[in-house]
């Protein structure tokens, strides 16, 4: 089955979404990421959505629930690379992704994760 690759970078996991997400793929990512957080004892998760030209309420909810699940598993989540047109649309849709950390790119996202994790430990 098709899946989104998850890379381990030190204490963090990086999931870079490179395809148009269908619903099953979004749910699979949620399962895979939570499993990997536990298996790799990850402290943080970066989700790169820079190639996504659409984030609807289903994908948005999946992102918010990954962040929620990760927090329960003692890991922080940062969403990086959201396109401006996607940000405008998400807010108008009514899904401002409150409680989800965001950063402009992977580098800034990593820095944010490091800060968050140091603060927590």
């Amino acid at each position, binding site marked *: 089955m098709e899946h989104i690759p998850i890379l381990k970078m030190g204490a963090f996991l990086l999931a870079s979404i490179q395809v*148009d*997400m*269908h*619903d*099953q793929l979004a749910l699979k990512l949620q399962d895979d990421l939570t499993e990997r957080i536990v298996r790799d004892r990850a402290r943080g998760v970066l989700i790169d959505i820079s190639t996504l*030209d*659409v*984030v*609807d*309420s*289903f994908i*948005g*909810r999946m992102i918010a629930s990954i962040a929620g699940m990760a927090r329960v598993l003692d890991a922080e989540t940062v969403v990086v690379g959201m*396109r*401006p*047109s*996607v940000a*405008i*649309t998400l807010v*108008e*849709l*009514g*899904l401002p992704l409150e409680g989800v950390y965001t950063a402009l790119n992977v580098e800034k996202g990593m820095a944010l994760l490091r800060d968050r994790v140091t603060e927590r430990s």
Partner: protein
Amino acid sequence: MNRLESFSLSLRAAEDIVRMRQTVREQATRLGFSLVDQTKIVTAASELARNTILYGGGGDVLVEALNERRKGLRLTFIDKGPGIADIALALQDGYTTGGGLGLGLGGAKRLSNEFDIHTRPGEGTRVTITRWG
């Protein structure tokens, strides 16, 4: 009304949503929509297509490229599902009869320039959205 092009797409399974999004994107690009306008209509379409499949038991979407004073894209989602008993309630953010967030209908309305819904319990639902470029 000057119609440049019109065709129907079938919406039966979740995979059809991705295919429809790509088609709507292509049409919006061809009509010269800005990136934000493209994203809004594609996102609205995604919400409504999911409703058609999840709540309407599947259906079709009619895609119409319009050329009036401005160029526009009109999408009509048609299903023969159970219909919606209370439209005002269904349009409220957070109201859902499924497991979703309850943003689909209200969100799609906000993302469109024109929004129209016809529904009758037991007979199905028809939602039309138009976005002008």
